């Protein structure tokens, strides 16, 4: 069984490399993020201590994942938060649409949520007559152009202010052209403020969900998350099932390392702990809070003890900021919801390691991602494992699309190779031809072209070793 290899990262990456503006935008932004992060961790020992602690917390939470999820559901239910489970993105989308329809909601204002990107919720709602408005400034900017995020923390980082200025002046009603960032921000604020006040429902992501208390933790800087969760009458939170932690004590270190690793801030401007909808004696605020917990392949990832580490991720984006590939090609080249190193290991596991075979190979395995990851996810090791999974169908493996990345041509090359090695006469004949004609190999031929495209063509010796041994009187003893 061979999967279609339609999306080729190396092709989109090659195209991205030709765009100097894009490269400059990313280089500048990433350099800034790298130095801001560094400033937050002046002492490498302190950093390592915090990483160890965070890794331990995330690993322990995953170890008890099924139990913690049950506890989370019970605590939330007790607090008046209604919990819904979705195995697939389609189910999650339907669920949310159902909740909106039940309240006759026509507009949904959204705080930043990568899980909702994963679900392609906006397009789904749009198709079903509900307007979904992104309220995070970066998300708003890309929504105006119908783009997807190019970074998980800074979705519009691929654009510079001139591009945004042009875009705003064309797409926002009555907008004057300006390149002043404060004025651009004020423009977006004005449009979005109106949307907040009119919206029928608000949607947010979840950074950590606390099983013991049923608390949803939300990290943000802009205040749009706060608005999405308390201005409209209905609040829907969506999370991947891995986001649960045991107790509030677990949250403090994770929060500390998240903001430092992500934007180089000691704390974010806002940190909200939501434990329930408004009380019966309150006259305003969301009457209903719903929590949608999405699987979308996560329990399959969970089932593999090595790959499970993927789920420790707290979505800080540090791995992409430090990735030599990401900083040069930008987020869109990955053609995946999650770009960069985390995307390279997450996307193939969600969509199938065969179809996204190119992603796991699009890495030099330099190890920078694993080194900065606040929860020590061994991204390079997982990449190597997934490269193998793509071409081998281990019966014990649960990896989506395992073995489907194997090409017929690869198969047959290896078979030919094995056949030749097994037969000494054939082997001698082959090496004779290779040494005599090697220099004249047609490097432009389809298969060889693949090999030599990024490698120097090997020049074979004029005679094989065994020939020389025989000629020069060497012996095997």
């Amino acid at each position, binding site marked *: 069984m061979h999967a279609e290899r339609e999306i080729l990262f190396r092709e989109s990456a090659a195209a991205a490399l030709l765009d100097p503006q894009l490269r400059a*935008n990313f280089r*500048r*932004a990433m350099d800034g*993020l790298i130095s801001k992060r560094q400033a937050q961790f002046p002492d490498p020992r302190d950093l390592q201590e915090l990483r160890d602690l965070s890794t331990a917390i995330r690993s322990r939470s995953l170890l008890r994942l099924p139990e913690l999820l049950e506890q989370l559901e019970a*605590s939330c239910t007790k*607090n008046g938060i209604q919990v819904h489970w979705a195995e697939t993105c389609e189910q999650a989308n339907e669920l949310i649409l159902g909740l909106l329809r039940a309240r006759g909601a026509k507009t949904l204002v959204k705080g930043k949520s990568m899980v909702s990107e994963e679900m392609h919720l906006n397009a789904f709602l749009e198709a079903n007559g509900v307007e979904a408005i992104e*309220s*995070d*400034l*970066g998300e708003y*900017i890309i929504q105006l152009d119908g783009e997807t995020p190019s970074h998980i923390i*800074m*979705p*519009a*980082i691929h*654009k*510079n*202010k001139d591009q*945004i200025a042009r875009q705003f002046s064309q797409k926002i009603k009555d907008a004057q052209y300006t390149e002043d*960032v404060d004025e*651009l*921000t004020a423009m*977006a*604020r004005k449009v979005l*403020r109106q949307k*907040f*006040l009119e919206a029928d429902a608000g949607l947010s992501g979840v950074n950590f969900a*606390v099983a*013991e*208390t*049923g*608390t949803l933790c939300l990290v943000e*800087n*802009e*205040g*749009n998350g*706060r*608005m999405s969760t*308390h*201005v409209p009458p209905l609040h829907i939170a969506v999370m991947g099932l891995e986001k649960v932690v045991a107790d*509030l*004590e677990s949250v*403090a270190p994770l*929060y*500390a390392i998240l903001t430092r690793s992500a*934007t180089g801030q000691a*704390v974010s*401007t*806002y*940190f*909200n*702990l*939501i*434990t*329930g909808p*408004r*009380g019966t004696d*309150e006259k*305003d*605020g969301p009457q209903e809070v719903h929590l949608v917990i999405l699987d979308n392949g996560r329990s399959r990832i969970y089932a593999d003890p090595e790959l499970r580490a993927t789920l420790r991720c707290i979505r800080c984006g540090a791995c992409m900021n430090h990735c030599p590939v990401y900083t040069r090609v930008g987020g869109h080249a990955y053609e995946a919801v999650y770009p960069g190193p985390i995307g390279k290991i997450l996307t193939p596991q969600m969509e199938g390691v065969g179809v996204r075979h190119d992603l796991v190979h699009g890495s030099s395995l330099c190890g920078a991602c694993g080194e900065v990851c606040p929860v020590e996810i061994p991204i390079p090791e997982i990449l190597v494992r997934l490269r193998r999974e793509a071409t081998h169908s281990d019966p014990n493996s649960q990896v989506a699309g395992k073995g489907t990345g194997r090409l017929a041509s690869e198969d047959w090359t290896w078979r030919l190779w094995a056949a030749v090695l097994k037969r000494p006469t054939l082997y001698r004949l082959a090496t004779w031809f290779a040494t005599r004609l090697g220099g004249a190999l047609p490097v432009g031929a389809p298969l060889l072209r693949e090999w030599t495209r990024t490698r120097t063509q090997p020049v074979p010796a004029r005679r094989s070793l065994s020939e020389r041994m025989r000629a020069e009187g060497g012996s095997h003893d």
Partner: protein
Amino acid sequence: MTATFEAFQTRAAAVSAEVHRFATRHEGLAFIECFLREVGVSEAPGSGALWVDGSFLEGIGSAHVTSQVPGVSFEVTREAAAVAKVGISQLDWAIAGTGTLVQDATAVEKRLVSTLPPIHLAVLGTERILADFNSVLQRLQPEQINYIAFITGPSRTADIERVLTIGVHGPERLIVVVVDDFEKVTA
């Protein structure tokens, strides 16, 4: 206490919050009234201030404020908050280490006045400033509070070219009035 306050003030100032300390609530109130007049709070549309009354005005009375600064209202609604110039609310705790304010924001009025108006003025007792996040968590019972808000400086974004911009959705100014004799009331 002074050391903790100073640590808080330094950290809060670093994230663009403006912190003022007063010995008594009366002095604090005098500052607030003066501040409100200065920023042009009046009865004119779009120039109001909304105050979610806590214990700060106990024994002083809200009437005192409204007589001093017309335009201050204690009737907080979503509509009023959307057009108000200043929102005033009482904060429960603060964290010296990060310059963070902490509020039991279960009452949505508190969230509205700290989110919608362009200026948020927070009042706080000096004794309420604690060292770190964990000390606050120990004093709160999150499982019994529907909404806890941690606020560090005014609303900000760096989504355009990583240029830091203040006041994208929430307030663009955060004024913190810290008062020493507060505990006598809240205790």
